[in-house]
């Protein structure tokens, strides 16, 4: 039994639920038989992957859905062996090069070279190029991105790249200018609601509109998360009641709780307690920029407007420094310590004024 998310994923461009104009554009692109390199970008859960797969299906037919997992081996110049998992069909290959860490350049170069040097044998009724899907391009090192730009031009005859990223701020301009960028905005709350209703109808569930509403709001406009939440709700309690609790991810609750603790007491002792909680989060692989975002949103709630600006300033500074450094815990802690001192001053001042 598969999850709803996979079960009801639209498989073709016609079946997409939103961004229909863009779907039509993509269809036009495929109909012309050839397309430039593409770069899809948008927030998580907005349907980038779904669109890519639908595009590939439109291009090659149902054969692209016969996927197989492959383990590829790469050797770095320093003779280090790397194993990368890829998902491939006869027509395309999908890789997340950032799995290779700092050696992503080797992966990108070797992979594209291998794929591009093999021509499609029976070109009748098929495209004469393969497609390489690279995910999380924004996490590629600059070195790999520069390597990509050279390989992209060199092998344009035998392969096309489809790049997928959350944001393109970290993608170098040279790559952006070589790709046709497709922006995939997050679905609106309304769109999420209709899709939730559609899914529950297909499952034969009765979803009260109020519940759908709350799931949609809590999902952070992330469709994948919304559908997963729906499924969790179903597991918890069915038939649904309109005032049913919508479960949030436990790390989110944990992080909120941490923020409450920060606001409740500002002392070195508390700071040490909180450090353990952050370690806990990091061990579970919660992305650090999400930690910062949630903390910021939670902490500013109990500040006045003057302090808010200062807190944002701090968050921006430490978040940036965190990306520069290699140990994230220092920067998170520095932010918390700074916030504590700011907040303590603020509280004292307001007591003085009274």
């Amino acid at each position: 039994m598969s999850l709803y998310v996979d079960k009801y994923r639209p498989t073709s461009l016609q079946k997409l639920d939103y961004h229909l104009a863009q779907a039509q554009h993509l269809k036009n692109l495929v109909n012309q038989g050839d397309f430039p390199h593409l770069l899809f970008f948008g927030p998580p859960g907005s349907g980038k992957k779904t669109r890519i797969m639908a595009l590939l299906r439109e291009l090659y037919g149902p054969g692209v859905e016969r996927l197989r997992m492959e383990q590829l081996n790469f050797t770095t110049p320093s003779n280090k062996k790397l194993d990368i998992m890829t998902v491939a069909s006869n027509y395309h290959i999908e890789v997340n090069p950032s799995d290779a860490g700092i050696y992503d350049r080797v992966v990108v170069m070797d992979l594209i070279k291998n794929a591009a040097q093999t021509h499609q044998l029976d070109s009748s009724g098929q495209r004469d190029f393969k497609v390489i899907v690279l995910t999380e391009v924004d996490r590629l090192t600059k070195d790999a991105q520069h390597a990509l730009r050279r390989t992209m031009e060199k092998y344009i005859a035998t392969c096309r790249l489809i790049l997928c990223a959350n944001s393109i701020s970290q993608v170098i301009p040279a790559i952006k200018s070589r790709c046709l960028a497709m922006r995939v905005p997050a679905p609106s709350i309304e769109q999420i609601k209709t899709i939730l209703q559609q899914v529950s109808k297909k499952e034969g569930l009765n979803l009260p509109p109020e519940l759908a509403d709350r799931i949609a709001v809590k999902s952070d406009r992330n469709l994948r998360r919304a559908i997963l939440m729906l499924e969790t709700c179903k597991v918890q309690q069915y038939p649904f009641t309109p005032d049913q609790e919508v479960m949030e991810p436990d790390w989110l609750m944990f992080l909120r709780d941490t923020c409450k603790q920060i606001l409740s007491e500002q002392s070195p002792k508390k700071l040490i307690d909180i450090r353990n909680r952050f370690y806990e989060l990091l061990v579970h692989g919660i992305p650090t920029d999400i930690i910062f975002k949630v903390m910021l949103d939670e902490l500013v709630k109990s500040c006045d407007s003057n302090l808010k600006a200062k807190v944002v300033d701090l968050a921006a500074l430490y978040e940036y420094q965190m990306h520069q450094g290699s140990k994230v815990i220092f920067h998170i802690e520095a932010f918390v310590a700074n916030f504590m001192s700011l907040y303590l001053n603020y509280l004292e001042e307001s007591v003085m004024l009274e």
Partner: protein
Amino acid sequence: MNMEGSNKKLKNEFNKLDNCQANDSNFQPGSDYKQLIKDIKKFTTLIQEKKVEDELFKTVYNIAHPRFVKELWDTDGDNVSELSLNSDTSADEAYWKDLEQKMDAFLKNKKINKEEKTDLKTSKDSKPEVPNKPWVEKYRPKTVDDVVEQTEIVSVLKQVLGGADLPHFLFYGPPGTGKTSTILAAARELFGNAFRDRILELNASDDRGIQVIRDKVKNFAQLTASSVRPDGSPCPPYKIVILDEADSMTGAAQAALRRTMEKETKTTRFCLICNYVSSIIEPLTSRCMKFRFKPLGTYVIKSRLEMICKEEGVNCDMNAISKIVDISEGDLRQAITVLQSCARLKGGDKITEDDIVEISNLVPEGLVFDLVESCKENVYEKIQLRVTKIIYEAYPLSQIVTQIHKYITSSNSLTDVQKAKISEYIAECSSRLQRGASEYTQLLHLCCSMGNILQEES
């Protein structure tokens, strides 16, 4: 598909073509009419084998002048109708034999024109052009005369083409102004067919360390070039090394070039191309003739785009073209790329201004305006709401920051001090973003700081 239907259709096709070419009175049929008859025969059997009609029509256009076939057809009108009633192949053969004889008679009266014959042959041989060439490549200037706006360099190159000596060149200027195109066009005109062997083009994506300069460039430069082309016509006795994007060459590699450039002047000329002349070391700049390529004027870009639209049959709004010109900022390559992407995405539909904004990933002006306005109010919740919305809509943040900057600097209501302070924050934000900081926090920070500045002073 029955025989009658296809014959009628065929005849219609010929009629149509004949109308088009009625003025072409100079036409004379080719000499190898026997071959022609054979081809036509093959053609009819193809019809009988029920192959695709369109394919057949194409073959026939290549085989013969339509008017000629028409004449032939008309003389045998009766037979055709007979044939169409009778699908027996023996009758068919008899018909064609008869036809062949009549053709002989018909052609005896005509003079054989040799030129026509070669014309026919070339039309047969010519292959369809690769359809999916990027327009940037397709409409690259072919000759020096085609290069637009860069008057100084064009006049120098014309003298070179007229026989003057070619100095080393250094082209610099913003992207998309025709630097590479100019030198390639000049090389093509200088060397003609031998052009591929006479130039060595290295750009930033090629490995270009000091080793490559030492080996590849030196080896290429040491080979002498003859002063005649393979076909015997004269040609300048030197080769050209084009170092594209020379500003990304390492200092050591540039230094290695110094002496090589001087020593090999006999056989080789260098052309360095870069965006910023300041990143080329002094000894190299002093060895070259420097030309600055200025951004292209709006009029030039506009007329180019219109020309391409006409050639490619793209249906494009006038406003859309103006918008492309606007966002390209003198970069013709970008303008053409945007146009082609739009044309591809829209299929055959009309391209409007909104499409251009969407495809070139511009942020709608309204959004930036709203963001700055909510900063002016300086209410955190409102700013936060707007920022979240922008992140959800996935607008590229680097673009937003650029547009905020544009908006701020061109605003009349702000004082210079405010503008300066805000610009500082914009610079900080943009640099942090490029180094991988998260978009949400940084944009929020920028907006909050902007809010503070705007409130402080007003």
